[in-house]
């Protein structure tokens, strides 16, 4: 099957996945600011308007609530809109439509009205941007029942997960780690069978500490595990992939083996995903824990000016520091 493989970036994987989804189902539409001729500011929708037309790849007026709100109507009419929010910090004007309308439509209609919508959000920092371009809003969505929240960390997942999200009959907040868009390339075999969407994956096996990460932090954590291995420390890294629902199975299995867990994310520590993971792990592995679940995250300050963003974002050293502290218990 090697004839079908190719080396792709995350940006390319997403673009190919979107194209595939549009080919497979004529009800799939793309909406957002600059998604047409420009192909989005990150070029994730590059070429799609040209091939699928302006009726299926829709440049919208500059209004996020309007984009999501009209996407609700399109979904009610039987379409499967895939909405692009240009940057994480610009999803908030649509927050009302997302948490009050998108998330609740199926529930309030007792299952009569489905809301198969994907809301793609490039998220996270590390690209030297100005304000509002580096946010990590995952917890603000994962707290809301009715939404599903997933995030990919690598090109191959990008290709499959976007298609799976579009195929899902529930609304999916699809978080794309923007600084990974062009970071690495990976080999895609598009004839492979993808792992299911709402599952977490052990991406590196280890015995001493379980490191939980997702999106942009997976790469950092893998590097941390690599570095730690040099010092004889064996770190298991799990790529959560799904943030709501959480797939606790692999997490609990791992922590029961290692007795220690560290969660890393770019989002603020306070009430971030780490809080929920810590609570659940502690509830369910209480007697296995050798140390409290430790959290490494963005500090509880607004995202700072970009010249010091590397101090805000957890890096390899801060992750290893937390691993050390965990081992020190």
């Amino acid at each position: 099957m090697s004839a079908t493989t190719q080396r792709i970036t995350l940006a390319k994987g997403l673009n190919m996945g979107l194209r595939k989804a549009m080919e497979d189902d004529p009800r799939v539409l793309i909406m957002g600011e600059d998604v047409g001729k420009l192909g989005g500011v990150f070029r994730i929708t590059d070429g799609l308007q040209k091939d699928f037309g302006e009726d299926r790849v829709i440049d919208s007026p500059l209004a996020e609530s309007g984009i999501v709100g009209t996407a609700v109507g399109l979904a009610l009419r039987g379409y499967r809109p895939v909405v692009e929010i240009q940057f994480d910090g610009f999803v908030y004007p649509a927050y009302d439509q997302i948490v009050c309308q998108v998330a609740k439509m199926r529930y309030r209609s007792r299952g009569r009205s489905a809301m198969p919508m994907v809301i793609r959000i490039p998220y996270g920092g590390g690209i030297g941007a100005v304000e509002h371009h580096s946010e990590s809003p995952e917890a603000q969505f994962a707290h809301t029942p009715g939404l599903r929240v997933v995030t990919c960390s690598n090109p191959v997942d990008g290709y499959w997960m976007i298609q799976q999200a579009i195929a899902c009959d529930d609304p999916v907040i699809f978080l794309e780690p923007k600084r990974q868009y062009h970071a690495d390339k990976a080999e895609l075999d598009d004839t492979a069978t993808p792992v299911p969407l709402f599952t977490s994956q052990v991406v590196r096996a280890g015995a001493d500490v379980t490191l939980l990460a997702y999106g942009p932090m997976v790469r950092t954590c893998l590097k941390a595990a690599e570095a730690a291995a040099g010092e004889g420390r064996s770190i298991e890294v799990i790529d959560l992939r799904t943030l709501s629902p959480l797939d606790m199975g692999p997490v609990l299995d791992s922590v029961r083996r290692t007795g220690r867990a560290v969660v890393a994310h770019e989002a603020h520590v306070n009430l971030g995903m780490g809080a929920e993971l810590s609570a659940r792990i502690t509830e369910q592995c209480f007697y296995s824990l050798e140390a409290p679940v430790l959290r490494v995250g963005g500090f509880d300050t607004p995202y700072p000016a970009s010249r010091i963003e590397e101090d805000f974002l957890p890096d390899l050293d801060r992750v290893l520091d937390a691993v050390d502290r965990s081992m020190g218990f």
Partner: protein
Amino acid sequence: MTDPVTDPAARPRIEWHAPTAEPELIQLLTPEGERVHHPVFDLDFSAEQLRGFYRDMVLTRRIDTEATALQRHGELGLWAQLLGQEAAQIGAGRALRAQDHVFPTYREHGVAWCRGVDPLRLLAMFRGVDQGGWDADEHHFGLYTIVIGAQTLHATGYAMGVQRDGAVGTGDPDRDTAVVAHFGDGASSQGDVNEAFIFAASYNAPVVFFCQNNQWAISEPIERQSKIPLYQRAQGFGFPGLRVDGNDVLATYAVMQAALQRARDGEGPTLVEAYTYRMGAHTTTDDPTRYRLSADVEHWKLKDPIARVEVYLRRNGLADDDFLADVQAEADDLGVTLREGCKAMPDPEPLSMFEHVYAEMTDELREQRDGYADYLASFEEVGR
């Protein structure tokens, strides 16, 4: 150079007057029951149709008064009254064709009636039994929306879907489809409503924005939202706006029919402002005496939407006592059905709470549900 700041005489002044001094109110039937004619929006109404409007309005009013009474008796948690707005809603509701799709607020009981939604389903929602128990697709009538204005975007998006389905401008009366976005005068201030105008104009979507200007948003008078007539908002967005006498079912019907047809024909959105008055409280928890004069209410009583049709029917021999008595009897029956049906409504099963959050229940939610089921069962055991 003379300085216009310090020298008022040198000031170029921006002279400005509101778009039109006297807003035109489209009317076909006066409060006194006089049939008047309009150069554009005139229609020949059959006697049957007029009697139908009358019946619809009487029955709708009965639904409203019964529900209000049921709330007073503790059977409903809340009720949003439509008293005074019957003509606006029946006019708008009856102008629809089967395939047209409606996005209501929480007060469109009359439109729901026209769409064949069992009024008990409305009561169920206000009773707290469910959050909208009808099938939106079956009735082409969406669930009530409580977050002000949100549904105007849904309507616009739905209309964009209609366009993509090729269901506008084909000339096939059973295929071409219009969408209606209901909202209130207060709602006109929400960002969402204005964004809906923008999207609808930008895509030329087949949507009619139907604003029932009942003069109040709870305690706030219309002047807080707009100092000029609301229908004029539309022209700044690039589509037509019209004001119709919302207490005149004929005029509302005629104007809505034209606006809906315009949408179906692919000519784009229209804003229709139905000028009416909320005769009752905002909802059953509201006390309008705190903020408005009873004299105003009295003034609007003279414009009652049902009375004028009754006068017209009688005066023109289009309805006799028997007909009126029949409608009354039908309303009484409806009242009984509603009272009994409402009281008989079972509460939902507690565990139903966990259903329909997702297409398929997630494992973590199933765990919560099972845990709660066990917890509930533990009481039953104790009880035994």
